[in-house]
């Protein structure tokens, strides 16, 4: 190419060409970025973000299917957490569930969101059998089929299966269902020492999660 390569108009031409190539390439890159982000969103919705993680989260939730978190059950909430939703929406799980979820997702531990409910001790439903009219409304509401009975026959709650989700109390037309505190089944009690001693100063809030 010799002398031709360095004549002024050739240089200008090459420069314009280079500029056009750069512009075209940048446009292609931006378009590609857009499609990549759209595709990844669709991929997430389709197959669920990291099914392993979702299963682990689901097992950490108390599976009461009560709906206090705003989702229709524990599985949709687990899905939402895997996609980045807040972990403090589950009142039946309480502080312990929030802590285990925080450890799993590497997030900070936060207090229970008050607009999703209050912390309550684990409870079991109890039907006052004298008042039961046999309408089967509570049986239809129970998500784990813990209520036994039939139409026009007395209903009763199987205590070992009841999760304390509270869903049976509202549908009952005679309001004969009480939520009683569930018995605690362990005699072992070890507490982290810094939670009861004042020796080591800590900025962590001194709330015992071992209820």
């Amino acid at each position, binding site marked *: 190419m010799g002398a031709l390569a360095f004549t002024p108009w050739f240089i200008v031409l090459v420069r314009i060409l280079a500029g056009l190539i750069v512009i075209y390439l940048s446009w292609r890159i931006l378009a590609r970025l857009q499609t990549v982000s759209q595709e990844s969103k669709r991929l997430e919705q389709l197959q669920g973000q990291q099914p392993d993680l979702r299963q682990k989260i689901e097992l950490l939730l108390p599976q009461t299917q009560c709906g206090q978190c705003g989702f229709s059950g524990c599985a949709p909430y687990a899905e939402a957490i895997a996609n980045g939703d807040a972990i403090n929406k589950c009142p039946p799980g309480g502080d312990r569930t929030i802590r285990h979820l925080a450890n799993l997702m590497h997030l900070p531990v936060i207090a229970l969101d008050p607009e999703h409910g209050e912390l309550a001790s684990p409870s079991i439903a109890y039907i006052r059998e004298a008042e039961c009219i046999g309408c089967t409304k509570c049986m239809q509401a129970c998500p784990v089929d813990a209520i036994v009975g039939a139409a026009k026959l007395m209903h009763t709650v199987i205590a070992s299966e009841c999760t304390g989700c509270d869903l049976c109390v509202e549908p009952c037309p005679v309001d004969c269902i009480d939520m009683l505190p569930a018995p605690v089944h362990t005699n072992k009690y070890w*507490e982290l020492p810094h939670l009861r001693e004042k020796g080591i100063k800590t900025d962590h809030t001194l709330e015992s999660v071992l209820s």
Partner: protein
Amino acid sequence: MKIASNRDRTRAVRSSSLAGGIHPESHKQHSLRSVIMATPIPEALIVPLQQHQGSPAEPLVKPGDSVLKGQILAKAINSSSLPVHAPTSGKVINIGPYPFPDEFGSSQHAIELRTDGQDQWIELNTVDNWQTLSPEDIVDRIQQAGISGLGGAGFPAHRKFDAKKPMELLIINAVECEPYITADQSLLREFASEVISGARILQYASQATRCVIVTESDKKDAIEKLRDALPESDLELLELTPRYPLGSEQQLVEAITGQQIPGGKHPVDIGILVFNAGTAKAVHDAIELGQPLISRVTTVCGDSLRTPKNFQVLLGTPVSFLLSLCGVDLNQLDRLILGGSMMGYTLQDTDVPVIKTTNCLIAGSRPEFPIQPTARPCIRCDFCSSACPVSLMPQFLYQSLHAENYATAEQLGLPDCIECGACAYVCPSNIPLVHYYRAGKLELLLKQQEQQRSAYRKERYESRKQRLARDTMQRRGSRRRSVARPENPDVSDDSLQTFSRQQAKIEIADAVARVKARRQGTDRPEQPASRKNDE
């Protein structure tokens, strides 16, 4: 299976396979000054129904029954249960909750026996030559004698033979590394031949290829007696350099054979059986003499006692009785510890009985066990990691548990911790490390239980969803069928549905009115006295 040195009758093995460990002062000389003394019979004995790991025994006697020494009081209910025998003759007073020796001061069901002082034996079932019995028979007799591990863990002895695979090595553990405890050493001093006989019975029952008796090299008197009692046989005597958690079965197996037991598994899973020396003697008593397990050797020591010594204690003897036998000075008694000084726990109540796993009682004075200064912040010196026999990292475990991050603690190996206390012993900041690990392990256990419960509930929820879907499909299917046969409108599902829905509404309204009327008639009823929530 290679043992770390050649087959001489006695040899010393450097315990270089033990990473870490400590060598505290042993405090054993006081209780070794005298021989084992058999305790006199106390007035009352409290025999708990569960002195082992597994299911409790079921009582066969009722209050008012007279029992003889060695008579079975409660039978084993399944394969993980052990029977309980009367330690002396007397009368059953009561079966109910009594204080039980554990860290939490709990009470468990026990049989209270009022002794009559006669100490009359029941007729024993002995055999002339135990070698005529099959190994399964011997294991069965071991269970019927109520033998659990006397080293402190309380695992039912017969369950170690469950593996149904040939054992390569049988280890009789007389290491007794923990300070203050001299029960096994004094047992070996006086009953070496019985221990060896028990070892031979265990070897026969397990069909083990080799049998080794292990002890620490500074227990000179025990070693001498063992050497005298060991004829030229295939039993080998191993001496190990004293080091604190060497008596723990995982560490012992690793020191002798160099093999590590996988996490969560037991030595039987790699073909090694480990039994305590006291258990071996109990096996000898059960098979040769036909006597069930009704007494054990317990060390009673501590600065507040006038005469610390080892006792052959009847099971169920109250701790207060033992203390008075040793001349306890209650003014000096500051801390009563059940177990050794590293892994024992403080007793609040002196009415607890001695059970199968009680190997030591320390009646300590204030100068002997001073109040520990408050814990100070961790200075990252990492002495704890050097001391840990399981090669964990106590510093990082402590950090994650202090931040209450149980997932990280689990990843760092918290379930593998044997709670020996070596890390807390060396910590210059006096941090109560083992307390953190116990709390962390409990939290992990609760988390595991919660996860199992969640999985179960999820299963029920899913099956309910399937049932509802099935019902909807069936209803849809039958509705389609009824539409195809319009000539029978009364029987069709559609009309059935409307009929029941309207009728149900009427009936519900009636019932609600009935209940309201009843309620206004009487006051609103309280909760019934008995909760009958089961089906």
